[in-house]
């Protein structure tokens, strides 16, 4: 099927909430830094951020700056804006984050036609301002 250009969903329609476990991720995003939650003791990465390392039980956390690149693990192609039902081609992707083994983000990809998106495609973080002053990591074809 032919869909045409993939676009990120409009940031002014998007809200997030945070809690003390997740907020450092979003604060880093505001600074243009892509991070992931890393155990401060054993080094295991986990996303979304949670209170305790599932491997060693430690509460210590690091928030390293990642390269900002990722690989598409899977995706869908959608053609309606979920907020208002209008025609809108967007591609939700599940990506594996470089520099943080085992972690993923769910985002939109742009910079190519929707039908050209494929598993294994390399992408680079692309920041989208959203409501309440937060910034969302989306991705562009690398």
């Amino acid at each position: 099927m032919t869909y045409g250009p993939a676009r990120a969903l409009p940031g002014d329609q998007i809200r997030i909430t945070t809690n003390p476990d997740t907020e450092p991720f979003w604060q880093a995003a505001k600074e243009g830094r892509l991070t992931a939650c890393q155990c401060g003791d054993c080094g295991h990465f986990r996303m979304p951020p949670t209170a305790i390392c599932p491997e060693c039980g430690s509460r210590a956390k690091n928030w390293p700056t990642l390269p900002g690149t990722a690989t598409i693990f899977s995706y869908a192609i959608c053609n309606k804006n979920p907020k208002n039902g209008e025609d809108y081609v967007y591609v939700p992707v599940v990506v594996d984050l470089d520099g943080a083994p085992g972690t993923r983000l769910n985002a939109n990809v742009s910079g190519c036609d929707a039908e050209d998106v494929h598993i294994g495609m390399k992408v680079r973080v692309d920041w989208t301002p959203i409501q309440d002053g937060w910034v969302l990591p989306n991705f562009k074809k690398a």
Partner: protein
Amino acid sequence: MAWVNQDKCAIVGIGSTDYYVRGKSWPRTINDMAAEAIMNACADAGISHKQIDGFSYYSTAGAGYLDKFDTASLMETLGMPHISWSATLTSGGGGCPGAIGLATAGLMNEDCTYTVTLMALQQLPQHRLGVVFGAAAPNPENSFLQPSGLVGPGHLMSVLARRHMHLYGTTQDAFGEVVMATRANTHNRPKAVRKEPLTKEQYDASVMLADPLRRLDFCLETDGAVAVITTTMDRARDCRHKPAVVHAAAHGGQREWGRAFAWMGMPDPYFASSGHKFTADRIWAQSGLTAKDIDVALIYDHFSPMVLMQLEDYGFCEKGEGNDYVLSGKLRYDPVTGKGVNGGVPVNTHGGNLNEAYIIGMTHIVEGVEQVRGTAINQVKDAEFALVSGGPASLPVSSLILRKD
């Protein structure tokens, strides 16, 4: 090792309301429909609803997506004198058949004597599942998912289906065959919502909602209620029908599946799966059976690819071979012989969530009961063992094996 509670309890009553297209059950209320289903199930069992003294829910006692069952309200509605068991499995529709295991726990602990498991569903416009996720302000966990526009369950499962296609060469033709094979079982079912046979051309023309999934890969949206009554074997023998014996029941799952498509962190090969492997292994260990011993499989079909992936997880075929298994016609029921086709096990002889009605898994239990009673509309000849599975979703997921008495 065989399960300690194997063959000690049975489902003795099944009851339902009419099935309504989404939103059409109004002005009936949730408790009205729930009470009708309970009373019909009790009448089927040959007991009074005032003998019910246990409630074994699933889906965190949810009634649909925004309503909640409350045992006290149901007691007040139905005039039940006392209860001594009121419990639920957590998460959602994945726990549906597992609730019969919960019922068994209450009965074997001698907490109760007749326990009801039920679901009632009324999707008024503001309660529609497809928009429930998207309408809610995202919580901190969901803030890592919802902004991607993966807001409905069909969106979420399309991502799993895509990965399965990538890893194993699975085709959309197989998803279509799941829908067509089970649609073929509803033409003679009076209460079914979709009864017309479905052609491949019609399937291929169905609108793409979340590529690779089409509208017809999505299950129905139904209003209605279904209830089943479980009791101990000694009491079951005094009921009106032959008991549908609880041979095995398990719920749970492993960390790699976890919150599943509310998370998307599952490593391969769990990502492109139904998340049922752990529970499948348990239920086969409990029963001493394998997929080869099952006569009819009632597989939760909220989305067609998840049927294919459950068939793999339960061992009806090898992992990655679901496409060829499905396309060889092995899900089909042959009404002439009363058996499967091409050596397969008939799947969803009632038409399932895709074609008959969607009451979050309860119709699959009802069909399992009718099959081992020998009274199903599309009766599998000499059916001894029926497998019933719950919806692939956040843990726990669950399954049940019913045995002919």
